Structure formats: C-alpha cells, structure tokens
C-alpha cells in the first residue's frame, strides 16, 4: 500500500493564484522521499492540503488508503507533521505541548507520559521538560516539534524544512534520528533547502515547479542524468593566461588563484588533474561549484533552487 497517493490535485486560492495545477504523486510505504521546489512552487500548498490545513480545489489525496475528504479522521491519524514555522504555544511547558498533542491524537494519558519521556530523552530535551517553549533555543524548538509530531507514532511523517536554522552538528544528529525512525518503518516526506541532505537521505525525489511535478524518480536515476559537473579549483601559484579548453574540459579564470573547470561525463577528476598538471597548474584544493541536485534542478526548471544563503 502507498503511504501517500495524490491524483490530479489542484488548488486555486481566493485571489485567483493557481498554486497547484494537477499534481500526481505516489509515495511508497517505508520510503524516505524528498519533495523539492523553489519558493512559491507549490510544495507548501501540497503539504498543507495533505495535512488538512489547506482546502483543495479538486483532486484526491489518500494517506494509507484513507481519503482526506471522505474519512479525514482516519487519514489524519496516520500523519505527523513537522512544519517549517514554529507553531506551538510558546507559553506552555515543553512536556505539556507534547502531552497535549498526544491528547489531540487520542493517545491514552499513561502512554502519553511514557512516550513523552522517551521522546524527550531521545531528542535530548528531557532536562527542559518543564521549561516554557519560548525559552528554548532554535534547535531545541525544532526538536520539540519533532517530538510532538511523533507522540502518536505516525506511519507517515512530513518534515517541512526541519533543519532550517539548525547548526551542522545538531543537524547531523537530527538526521541520524530520522534515519533510525525511517528504518523502523515510518515513511518520511522531506522538503529541505539543504540539497545534500535530500541527496544523502532520500531514495526518491520529486521536483515541483509552478504547481506541477516536473520529475519524480529515484535519486540515483536522476543524478545519473547529470552529464557535467563544475569544480572550483584553487591554484598554488598565480594563474597566467588560460586556454578556454583543454581536451574535453572547459576552463574559466575567476581570479589570480582561482579557476573553474567543467567535468563532462564520463571523464574523471583524475583526468582533469592530469590535464591541469600538463599546463603547469598545481591545485591546492577544490570544491564542487554547486550541489549535484541543485544542478539537476537548474537543468529541469531553468532556474536555481533558492538555498538558505540566497533565498
């Protein structure tokens, strides 16, 4: 059974804006699925409809077979949501926010108490359980929302930019936790601006643009479509004149010590280094100019995906 099925989903807002123009999407049970798209592409609307915060104009959404309009109670009982913005009562203590969510989900109080302790310990918030949510750091607030979303053990977890504003170390520990949950059987749908995360975590990815799904495939199939990567290289010695191309590799001089090189498939980085060596250029360090997924995104939609740096 699919965890999520979306068929011909349309959404037109009251101001006439067409946010979704016929989305079709299927997420298999147990998947770690990425939904990517630039701001305004429609992914938040899509997630909003799945989580019942936004009313669809037409189309069908099923969560584990239960249609959100015909049996919303059953459909919502499968779902946990970690939204992008903080949406808890900042004046409530941490444990109360989680316990209330357990109550809304109909979890008996004794189980709520047990699970609250377990989740708060796992997410390193146990010491903060009696602290008002407004006193937590940004990272702690994110973890609080994750704990809250998991209190009823949902079969489908939607993570909408869950690591935005979280430092790298904490982000890694959060992803380890998510991976564990996924391995235990929870289906996860993720939207993120950190494309490396999507690349590392998700087996499948859908890219949404202008309210339409432009691609929906396994991550490795998509990345295989990339026939060229661009690297930024730092030269040890000042660069002189550069030829525009050396063999299959296009070169561009950026400044005295920096150049860019295009590496087309099937050529390897070793070949590029060898060619540069032939020009007498010794390379101190290099980095991928853009994330591979970002490059793919650019190719499919014709525009860059806003990252946290340039959004």
């Amino acid at each position, binding site marked *: 059974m699919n965890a999520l099925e979306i068929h011909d989903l349309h959404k037109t*807002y009251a101001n006439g804006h067409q946010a979704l123009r016929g989305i079709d999407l299927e997420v298999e049970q147990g998947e770690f699925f990425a939904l990517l798209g630039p701001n305004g592409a429609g992914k938040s609307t899509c997630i909003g409809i799945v989580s019942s*915060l936004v009313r669809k104009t037409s189309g069908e959404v099923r969560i584990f077979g239960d249609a959100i309009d015909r049996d919303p*109670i059953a*459909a*919502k009982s499968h779902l946990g949501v970690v*939204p992008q*913005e903080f949406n*808890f009562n900042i004046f409530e203590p941490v444990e109360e926010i989680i316990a209330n969510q357990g*109550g809304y989900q*109909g979890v008996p109080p004794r189980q709520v108490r047990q699970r609250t302790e377990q989740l708060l310990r796992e997410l390193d918030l146990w010491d903060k359980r009696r602290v008002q949510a407004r006193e937590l750091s940004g990272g702690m607030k994110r973890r609080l929302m994750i704990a809250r979303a998991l209190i009823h053990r949902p079969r489908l977890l939607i993570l909408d930019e869950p690591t935005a504003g979280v430092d790298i170390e904490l982000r890694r520990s959060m992803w380890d936790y998510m991976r564990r949950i996924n391995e235990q059987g929870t289906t996860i749908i993720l939207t993120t601006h950190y494309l490396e995360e999507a690349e590392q975590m998700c087996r499948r990815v859908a890219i949404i643009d202008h309210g339409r799904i432009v691609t929906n495939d396994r991550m490795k199939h998509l990345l295989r479509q990339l026939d060229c990567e661009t690297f930024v290289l730092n030269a040890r010695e000042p660069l002189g004149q550069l030829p525009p191309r050396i063999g299959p590799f296009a070169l561009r001089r950026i400044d005295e010590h920096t150049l860019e090189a295009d590496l087309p498939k099937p050529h390897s980085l070793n070949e590029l280094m060898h060619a540069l060596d032939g020009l007498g250029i010794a390379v101190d360090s290099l980095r991928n100019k853009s994330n591979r997924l970002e490059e793919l995104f650019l190719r499919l939609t014709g525009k860059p995906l806003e990252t946290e740096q340039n959004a």
Partner: protein
Amino acid sequence: MSRYRRYWIAYATITRREILRFARIWVQTIVPPVITVALYFLIFGNLIGGRIGRMDGLPYVDFIMPGLIMMAIITNSYANVVSSFYGAKFAHHIEEMLVSPIPNLVILLGYMSGGIARGMAVGLAVTLTSMLFTEVRAEHALLVLLVALLTSTLFALAGLINGIFAKSFDDVSIIPTFVLTPLIYLGGIFYSIDLLPDFWQTLSLANPILYMINSFRYGFLGVSDIDIGPALAVIVGFILLLFAIAMTLLNRGTGIRT
C-alpha cells in the same frame, strides 16, 4: 481503541488545556471581575443605592446583585473563548488540532467547555464577593445554576464565532465593546424595564441578555420582569442557533483553513 474513546481523550485534553490557560493567569482572569463587582456594590449598592430606594420592591443592592454576577459570567465566558481561539490562530498553534484526527464538534465542545468553566469560576468568585455586600441567598438554587450554565454556554459559543472571524486583536475587542457591553447594560442589570416607556420596554424584549438577567434574578430573588419559561426557551434557542453557526463555520474552515 474505539474512535469515541479517542474523541473523549481529545475533548478532555482541549478542555483541560483551556482551564489551565485561565487558571494559570488567575490574576488577570479571576481577580479583575471580582474587584469590578466589588466596586459596583460599593458605589451603586451601598453609596448611591440608599438614595435610589427600592426596585421591584427590593433593596437596590439586592436588585442589582444577580445582574452583576450575570455580567461577569457573560463577559468572562465570551472573553475566554475569543482570546484563546484567536490567540491560537495568531500563533498558529491551532494547527496542532487541525492536523490531528479530531472532529470539529470535539474542538467546538472543548473550547465551549473552557468558556463555561471560566464563566462559572468567575461567577462563583463574584457570588462569594457579593455576599459581603448583601444577604441575598438563592431562592431557587438549581435555576440559578441552570441559568449560569446556559448563559456561559451561549456566550462561549458567541466568543468562538468571534474568534473564528477575527483577523486582528482589534476584532477581538470590537464585539465586546460595541455590542456586548451595551446589551448587558441595557439588559436590566441596574433597572427594571417596567421603568421604561412602552417603546423602549418593547425594544428591550429583543435583547437576549434581558432574559438571562431576569431568569437569574428570579432564581436569586423570586422576582422577574418576564416569565421564566419563555426566557429559558429564548436562551436555549440562541444556544442552538449559535451552535449551528459555529459548527458550520468550523466545517467550512472559515478563518482557519485557507
């Protein structure tokens, strides 16, 4: 576990949360109406009341007592729901409930119960305060309790409807200031409508709060400007109407779902 058991847990959670919300800030929610009513008793009851004389054959301080308690119940049951519901919309934590498998009826009943709880808690505190100023004791205690419950139910529902429509904090205060307060003051707290000219007397009958105050006064003092049976029927009729409106709005997602 059955759906209905889950709904009960959700209802109990919302109600408990609502009660904790106003109980935690009792200095802002319980104490002010007590002080206000004490001042009314002091000024209108003890200082000016003596000069006014008797109203409907009763000492003036006794006459105003049920109306003042009713005023506290009305304003607090209304304020509890409108501020809590709009606050939840404003801070987006209403989404916690909207994404959960809770029928709208349970959300409505939960907020309504919170409003009733505050109305009754304040009503009790104000009643105890009034006993310092009058020696009135309820002649029909069950009727007093029933009217207090029905009135707080009605205004909790009205507060919910206001909260559903509210788009700013101004919207939260407009109805209480420009509609509720005039209706309360013109609902016969301080006077018997028999004192009014015929036209204003007839117009007063269109004010639902008149029925609540008079029913309540009958429960305490055994006197009323209007018959109790029709008065209770009017209150129940308004409750049913507001309940239907609130349910329709929640089912449509007005103000809470885009």
